[in-house]
């Protein structure tokens, strides 16, 4: 045992890799499902979807077979194993340390189907149900022993004695990792039963183009994991059963579980780390918080810039009340300046449909008014075409505008004078 690593005090003295510094907890889990090779995945997508769809039906059949055939029969093992191969779950048994005396397996946890894969080799029961619904309890793999988190040791013991060919399976890590390191064993019931314990090393991998597609991510649901398993061409599970070990007379449960952990880590060629399931959950929470913070920060920034935009848009609206607000906002996003937006609208660079404003008429003029102004003006238009006072253009300088104003004013008075004289028959 090497004790050069300070952090190994919690029982992480794996012989080989312990010389390296302790890996950070983040490295134990995949944070993203798809790290790269997105184009390849896109190409495979149609095939994968069809494959996954077909496999869903095969899944049901497999489920039925596991229900119909007796759990301990050898035929069931072979049939289900073949069907699982069609489902893309290939099981390869590396060392056949078959020991009929062994009643307890402890395995590392790398995917949601670990126990199903092990069940194909030797019928086993998982005495806990965490987040997988009982519908998916293929062939009664799960069994509840009082509490799912920490099963009752006494009822487990009586179960072992009553069952002949069924083994109990425990995942002492109690959480799924990516298999690059072993988490600390926090479930201790497999080591408290006073029976030989067989450690099982499970390695899950995908073939070349899908190697980087994680089997389980840090916070993935069992459903997503299952869908991806059915989507991928195949996932290989290398299962290796280590020789059985028993707890020594002087050994405490804690020491025994540490010894098994080291054995397992050595077999897997990874490091036994002191990280626990609780720490994994902490990590999930922390990452979630960070993501939320980033999200909130970007939202705040957005809101701030939006507020400013609305403020500017209102300024423009004050000047040009009949321009729709969304047109103003749109142009402000481009110009980011009240003045240039106003001049762009006035100069006709920005086209818009004038908003209908409540007119003076609609608001109701003094009650005794009988003839609306529009009609008044219409009648005026028919007769007094000369009263048109519009200019052909709006001068760009004050001088031009002033001149135009005066010309039009003189013309208006002249025209009015002519009209009056015509109408009243006045001669000058």
């Amino acid at each position, binding site marked *: 045992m090497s004790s050069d690593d300070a952090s190994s005090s919690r029982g992480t003295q794996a012989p080989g890799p312990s010389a390296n510094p302790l890996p950070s907890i983040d490295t134990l889990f995949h944070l993203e499902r798809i790290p790269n090779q997105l184009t390849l995945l896109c190409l495979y997508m149609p095939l994968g979807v069809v494959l996954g769809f077909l496999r869903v039906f095969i899944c049901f059949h497999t489920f039925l077979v596991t229900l119909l055939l007796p759990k301990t029969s050898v035929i069931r093992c072979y049939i289900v194993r073949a069907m699982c191969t069609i489902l893309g779950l290939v099981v390869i048994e590396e060392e056949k340390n078959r020991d009929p005396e062994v009643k307890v397996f402890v395995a590392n946890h790398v995917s949601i189907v670990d126990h199903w894969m092990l069940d194909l080799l030797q019928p086993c029961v998982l005495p806990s149900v965490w987040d997988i619904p009982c519908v998916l309890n293929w062939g009664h793999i799960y069994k509840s022993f009082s509490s799912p988190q920490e099963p009752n040791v006494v009822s487990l013991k009586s179960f072992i004695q009553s069952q002949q060919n069924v083994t109990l399976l425990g995942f002492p890590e109690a959480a799924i990792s990516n298999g690059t390191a072993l988490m600390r064993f926090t479930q201790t019931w497999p080591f408290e039963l006073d029976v030989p314990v067989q450690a099982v090393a499970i390695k899950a991998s995908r073939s070349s183009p899908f190697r980087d597609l994680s089997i389980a991510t840090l916070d993935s649901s069992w459903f997503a994991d299952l869908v991806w398993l059915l989507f991928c061409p195949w996932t290989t599970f290398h299962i290796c059963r280590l020789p059985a070990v028993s707890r020594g007379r002087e050994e405490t449960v804690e020491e025994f579980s540490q010894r098994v952990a080291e054995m397992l880590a050595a077999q897997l060629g990874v490091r036994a780390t002191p990280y626990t399931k609780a720490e994994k959950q902490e990590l999930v929470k922390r990452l979630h918080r960070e993501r939320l913070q980033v999200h909130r920060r970007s939202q705040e920034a957005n809101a701030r810039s939006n507020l400013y935009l609305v403020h500017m848009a209102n300024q423009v609206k004050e*000047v040009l009340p009949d321009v729709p607000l969304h047109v103003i906002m749109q142009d402000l996003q481009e110009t980011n300046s009240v003045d240039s937006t106003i001049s762009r609208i*006035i100069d006709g660079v920005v086209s818009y449909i004038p908003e209908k404003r409540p007119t*003076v008429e609609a608001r109701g003029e003094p009650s005794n008014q009988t003839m609306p102004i529009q009609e*008044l*003006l219409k009648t005026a238009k028919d007769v007094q075409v000369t009263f048109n*006072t*519009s200019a052909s253009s*709006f001068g760009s300088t004050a001088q031009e505008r002033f001149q135009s104003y005066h010309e039009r004013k003189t013309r*208006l008075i002249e025209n009015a004078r002519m009209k009056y004289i015509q109408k009243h028959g006045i001669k000058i």
Partner: protein
Amino acid sequence: MARSALRRLMAEYKQLTLNPPEGIIAGPINEENFFEWEAMITGPEGTCFEGGVFSAKLTFPPDYPLAPPKMQFTCEMYHPNIYPDGRVCISILHAPGEDPMGYECSSERWSPVQSVEKILLSVISMLAEPNVESGANVDAAKMWREDRDQFNRIADHLVRKSLGLPDTFSKV
């Protein structure tokens, strides 16, 4: 505030220059002071003020268009809703808060969606149809009610005066 008032006034000036209602001209007297405008409005046809071109001064507050402008005729006027000094008393020129006459409902009042054009159109319609309940010029209101002929004569006199035509023309 004055900046946005200026921009708004400039936009309205452009609108009124390029596309004015018939018989209306309005614009700043001098662009050095954009807050003081002159407006020419033509008396509506079929009324006693028909054909006259009346000049008025519009004075805009610095917080226009939040606050309404003031309007005062610079030519001689005789009308129930125009004070003897030329100031126009019309609901569109009053902010919703103020109500000097106590007869206006706030929906007719000034708001930033109103404009110079609307004011002038309202004044034209006011020339056609005085509101006799508002006694800006009590004498005129009384005459409008009781001696319309005399009122029409005075109006005609004012029309001629506004057009620079002497009153003493002989009709053929």
